[in-house]
C-alpha cells in the first residue's frame, strides 16, 4: 500500500516543490547527525539532498515503486546511501553516530541511489551529442523532448507551455523535433 504522500505526489507533481521545502531541513539535520559536519559540509549535503529528490522523482514513474514509510524517511535513507557511496568513491573516512550505519543494516532497507547517465554504445553517444547540439542551438526542441520523455508531460501540458493552439500541434512539433534529433545523431554516427 502506497503512502498517502506518494499518491498525492504521483497525482500532482507540483507537490514536489512543497515536499522539497519541508524535507530539506530534516534531511540536512539527519545527515549532520549521521556523519557530522566535519565529514559533510552544507554544499555536500545540498548536492546529496538534490540527488535524493531526483531519485524520488524518477521513481514516481515506476509503477513497482512502493513506499512503506514516509517520504521524509525515504529521502533520509537515500541521502544516507548516497553520502556513503560518495565517501566510498572518494575513499574518504567518516565518523558516524548512526548505529545502523555502523552495523551496515541500512543496506537491507532502502538501497536506491541516483542512476548515473552513462552512454555505452557509439549510437547512444551520438544521440546525446545530437541532443547537446539541439540544446545549444536554442529553440524549443530540447525542452519539448525533455518534457515528453523525462517529465512524462502530456501533449496538453506541452501545448500550454509552448503556447501551441492544441495538443495535436504539440504532438506534431514533438515528432519533428524527434526526427531532427535522429537525423543529427545519424550524422554524428557516420562521422
Amino acid at each position, binding site marked *: 500500500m502506497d503512502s498517502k504522500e506518494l499518491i498525492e505526489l504521483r497525482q500532482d507533481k507540483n507537490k*514536489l*516543490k512543497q515536499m*522539497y521545502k519541508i524535507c530539506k531541513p530534516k534531511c540536512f539535520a539527519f545527515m549532520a547527525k549521521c556523519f557530522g559536519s566535519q565529514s559533510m559540509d552544507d554544499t555536500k549535503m545540498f548536492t546529496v539532498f*538534490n540527488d535524493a*529528490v*531526483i531519485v524520488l*522523482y524518477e521513481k514516481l514513474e515506476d509503477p513497482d515503486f512502493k513506499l512503506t514509510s514516509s517520504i521524509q524517511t525515504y529521502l533520509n535513507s537515500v541521502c544516507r546511501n548516497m553520502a556513503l557511496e560518495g565517501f566510498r568513491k572518494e575513499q574518504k573516512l567518516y565518523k558516524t553516530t548512526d548505529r545502523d550505519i555502523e552495523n551496515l543494516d541500512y543496506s537491507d532497507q532502502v538501497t536506491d541511489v541516483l542512476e548515473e*547517465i552513462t*552512454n555505452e554504445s557509439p*549510437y*547512444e553517444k551520438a*544521440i*546525446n551529442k545530437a*541532443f547537446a547540439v539541439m*540544446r545549444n*542551438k*536554442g*529553440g*524549443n*526542441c*530540447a*525542452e519539448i*523532448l*525533455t518534457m515528453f*520523455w*523525462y*517529465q512524462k508531460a502530456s501533449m496538453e501540458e506541452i501545448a500550454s507551455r*509552448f*503556447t*501551441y*493552439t492544441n495538443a495535436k*500541434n504539440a504532438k*506534431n*512539433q514533438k*515528432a*519533428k523535433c*524527434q*526526427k531532427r*534529433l*535522429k537525423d543529427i*545523431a545519424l550524422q554524428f554516427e557516420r562521422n
Partner: protein
Amino acid sequence: MKVITEITKNTYELTFNSEAEYEWFQIGRLFIESDDIYKDLIENALIKKNKSKEDVLSWRDLFFMEIAEQNEHLDDQNPLIKLIRTLPLFISNIKFINHLPKATAALGREILLDELIDNKNADQLIPDKLIEAALKKKSRDDLKRNFEEWNAEDEIKETVFVPNKSESEKIYTKKFSYLKYLIAACFIGAIAVIGYNNFNNGYDFEDSQFVKTSEKIVNKNKGLGFANKEEKGKSITIQVFDFNKAIVLNKSVSDKLVLHSYLFSDKELKLVLEDSNIKTEVVELEQSVFYLKINDKFFKIEKTNEFKNLEKLNDPKIIEQLERILFKNE
C-alpha cells in the same frame, strides 16, 4: 488496419505540411513491404509525382518512428505488426526511441532542480527598481555624509582658527560656508554635464560600451512545404543596448532612452533592453511584416524612424506560425 492508416496519414501531413486524400493503408503497407518505396508509390500512382524522393524517404522514416513509439500498444498477433518488428527501419527507430528518456535525463534533472530551487528566478531576486533605488540612496547618503563632514570641518575651523571674529566676519564665514555648498553643487553639476556629454556620445550605438552588436539572418516564411529551401533571408544588424548596465554608471540614460523600445530600419534593429545577453531572432512572416523573438517571447516590430515601445505578441496562432518558421530555418 486503423493504426497503420492513421500513422501513414499523420506522418504525411507532418512531412509535407498539407492534407491529402490518398489510399493511406495501401501506402502504409508499401512502407512495410517495398524495397524501393519511391518507385513503387509513383508507379502505382499512390501519391502525386511532385514529391521528392528525399521527402518520401523522410516520411517513411517518420512513419516507422511513430510505429516504434506506439510499439507497446500494437496488436502482437497481427501479421503485419509481426513483419514490421523484423524490419531494420523499425529496429533502428525502436533503439532510438528507447534511448530518449536517457538522452533527456540530464536536461530533465537540471530543469527539475531549477524549478525546485527557484534558480530560474535567481536573477530576479533583486528587482531592477530596488537596485536603482539602492544606488540613488547610496549617492544621496554619500552626499549627505560629505555635507556632514564639511559642516564638521567648518565648525572646527570656526572654533580653532576664528575664535574672536566680528559679526561681519561671522557673516562672511557663513557666506563662505554657503559658497562652498554652491561650489559643491556646481562641481556635481559639472560632473553630471561632463558625464552626460560623455555618455551622450554613447547613444551613438556603434561606439557605446553598453551595446552588443550581432549580425542575424532574417528568418523568412518559406511556405509550409519544402519550397525555396535554398533561399536565404537577408542579413540584419542587431544592436542591443544594456539599459541596466548603463544606468548604473549614468542615471540620465533614462532621459534619452526608454527601456523595452526599438528602432527598426531596413538593415538595422536597435533594441533597448535590461540585458544585452539575450537570444534574438527576426522573422518576416509576410512581405514586410516582421516579428522579433527575444529569448522565448515574441514582439511585433515595424519600420520606424524613432524609438517605439516593444509590444508583446499574445496571439497563440501567430506565435505557433513563427515558431514553425524558426524551426524550419534552424
